[in-house]
């Protein structure tokens, strides 16, 4: 197991380096840089050339990449081109907001998705099942921006139950969490339902039934444990992708998280800041997958990593 973890971590280093290099090359080819982003309609070629020089933006790409990697190995993510502050600080300010949003969205998805999946499986093909599956299908198939804008309009603007946008009180978290959590809850509940229906028909469940165990007992202690296993990977992946920033939802509800930060980094051609957010989300996805695999092994004695 330890060997496996060490191996996975070792493999992640070239992945992160590869992602950094790809970002660097791509950023080099899109038009504009940090200076044009700041000058906007007052753009002037002389000034651009001068400030580019002063900011060392014209150095060869390999030189810039080398310097960046050198700093990175010293644990320095660099300084934002346009905001003139350490990238680490900017990410440190935005990340807690993203974590808050991700946690509450995931809580919403799990609290709703898991029981709905179980009930739908047990009440297979009843009206309740159809209703639940319909709602979850809506969550999966409707794009986040449309759910977001519809909920924002109905619940916040018309009914005034919740704030329209912003991120200052816990109430501000509710709508975006529903928007993000709905589709995840949909995925989770549908997966659990399918798996649970399969598992309930397995021989060992019939054995348990024959032993006279209660129906709830069988579902919770025997069937659920087996049927939730494949869902764990999905749930971890959902969580880590949320930690990388939820661009659209953050935009609709004006949430100052990693998504907002990386979008502004991209539009400002702020390479160090963009790299910082990309390193963070790559790292999170790698770690998230690793944790999912470990949980998988712990929960299912049939899985070994040797």
């Amino acid at each position, binding site marked *: 197991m330890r060997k496996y973890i060490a191996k996975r971590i070792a493999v992640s280093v070239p992945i992160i380096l590869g992602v950094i290099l790809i970002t660097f090359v791509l950023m080099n080819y899109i*038009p504009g840089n940090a200076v*044009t982003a700041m*000058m906007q309609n007052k753009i002037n070629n002389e000034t651009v050339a001068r400030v580019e020089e002063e900011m060392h933006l014209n150095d060869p790409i390999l030189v810039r990449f080398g310097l960046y990697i050198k700093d990175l190995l010293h644990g320095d993510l660099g300084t934002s081109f346009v905001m003139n*502050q350490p990238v680490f600080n900017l990410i440190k300010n935005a990340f807690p907001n993203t974590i808050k949003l991700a946690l509450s969205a995931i809580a919403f998805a799990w609290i709703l998705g898991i029981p709905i999946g179980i009930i739908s499986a047990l009440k297979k093909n009843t009206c309740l099942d159809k209703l639940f599956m319909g709602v979850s299908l809506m969550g999966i198939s409707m794009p986040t921006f449309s759910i977001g804008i519809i909920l924002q309009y109905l619940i*916040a603007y018309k009914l005034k139950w919740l704030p329209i946008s*912003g991120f200052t009180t816990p109430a501000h978290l509710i709508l975006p969490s529903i928007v993000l959590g709905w589709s995840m809850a949909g995925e989770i509940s549908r997966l659990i339902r399918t798996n649970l229906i399969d598992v309930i028909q397995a021989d060992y469940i019939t054995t348990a039934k024959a032993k006279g165990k209660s129906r709830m007992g069988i579902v919770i202690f025997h069937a659920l444990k087996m049927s939730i296993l494949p869902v764990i990977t999905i749930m971890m992946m959902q969580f880590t992708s949320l930690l990388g920033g939820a661009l659209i939802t953050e935009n609709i509800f004006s949430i*100052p998280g990693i998504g*907002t*930060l990386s979008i502004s980094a991209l539009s400002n051609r702020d390479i160090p800041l963009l790299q910082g957010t990309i390193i963070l989300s790559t790292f999170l996805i790698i770690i998230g997958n690793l944790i999912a695999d470990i949980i998988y092994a712990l929960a299912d004695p049939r899985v070994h990593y040797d």
Partner: protein
Amino acid sequence: MKKKFLSLFLVAALSVSMFAGCGKGEEKKEENAAAKNETKTEYVSKNGNTMVLTLFQNPKTLDIQKTNADYFIPLQIYDRLVDVTVNEAGETEIIPSLAEKWDISEDGLTYTFHLRKGVKFHNGEELKADDVLFTIDKAVNPEEACINAAQYQEVKGYQDRLDGKTDVIEGVKVIDDYTVAITLSAPSASFLANMTGAPASIYNRKAVEEGKDKFGFDPEYTVGTGYMKFKDWTQDQEINLVRNDEYFNTPAKIDGVRYLMNIDASTERMMFENGELDYMGVKADDLEHFKNDEFWKDYLIGYQPPSMDYMIFNQNDTFMADVNVRKAVQAAINRDLINQNFYNGEGTLLNGVLPPAIPGYSEDQTPIKYDVEEAKKLLKEAGHESDVTLTILQNGESTYTHPINEMIQSMLGEAGIKAEIKNMDMTSYWDTIASGEGYSISLGPVTADVPDPGAFFTTFTVENSASNGYNIKDKALSDKIKEANAKLDPKERIAALQALESEIVTEQALYLPIAAEKRTCIISPRLKNFQLGWQGWVCCSTHNVEIDDSYNK
């Protein structure tokens, strides 16, 4: 069975979205019938004595020498040597601000500013002549890499300091604590007007030097003399300003201003109507809604800002290099129709170089006529009867220009000009404009930020047009513009500039002015004495505005 439920859900989903679309009209009728007057008292705000506004972009830094993303906050927290006011005749006028008065030497080269005494920065330091020297020198200090250094390009020694040849800018001399002399490299009629612009804000030497990299972000060091103080900045969320009680002029009446960032356009309207925002620019699409609303229609304010929508003709493009093709494009575009469709028919069609409210603006210009047949004839003369293909460059972040460009595309089509629209994000857009390659024409807005006609004309000089997208080759006209702009007597200068307008617009067809849009904004009922700045900017209203407490909860 399955299908039945699916269709049920589809119906449910559809009806939800239908309610979202149609609900408003019905409810409004009910409200109107039931309680016309009650709605008035229903408006409540939780914002207290603080004005809440949105920012179009993240300012990135409050060091205004380093960004053009936002001028609004710098205009409030800093002051300039001189300021702008609009007199009774509706003309802009330059008035004292940090400089109580100024003398101009006979040769027009040296401006001696006498500073107001006892003006305090927000950190308690008194404004001294050295702060003026420091501010100007900081802008042109090559180590600072300021993008707005050109604000001081007329000052003597500007280029040498930028090139690192001198340690301090030559043209600024401290005479005593309250007197500073600024020498120009050549006489200029626009220097004073330029000193009213946001990038000419005056900083405090001590605060900037102590703050170093924190200046522009940290309220402790980001201090000016303005009527608002910078209080805090929550990253990507909000920026708060509070009233400066020790302002040298009358202090502001409100407690402060909260600027919200990253507010989406549709969200903005919902927030405004729910009492969360105090001001909103009204887009053409929303105007009818507010005009027909019994409650809101009283809070609409129409104004004419010194801005215009215009079309750049890029002469690096082989077709646009031909004056006949340029004239054909002018003749092919039906500006009246654009006005009817996009400016509610209220825009002023322009035929000159200046937008309204800028000194020298005149309505007596040779009109640019819409005439498709003339356009076809001109194309034939140019030998390009049917082979002209143009690229319209579209700034992705400027959503309102996209439908206008689509209309222009089809108008050009009628004259036999094929046009494709190339859409790109804002930074790519400006980079492409500056590169001068990959586009033929582009539509955009421009708003004057200093009350001077010069910049509108010098746009068309060979030198400047290499960056702003025109890429003009006519050296003779370029020299005439420079010569006219250099005249010192304001009246003579304006007359000389005006004399060039028809050559620029109609004879040479260097660009196509479209219209000056009459804009509309809407304010919350709780604002009293609300007055937009001369540029039509809301930031300048925060000094005198008052908040009616009876709407506050």
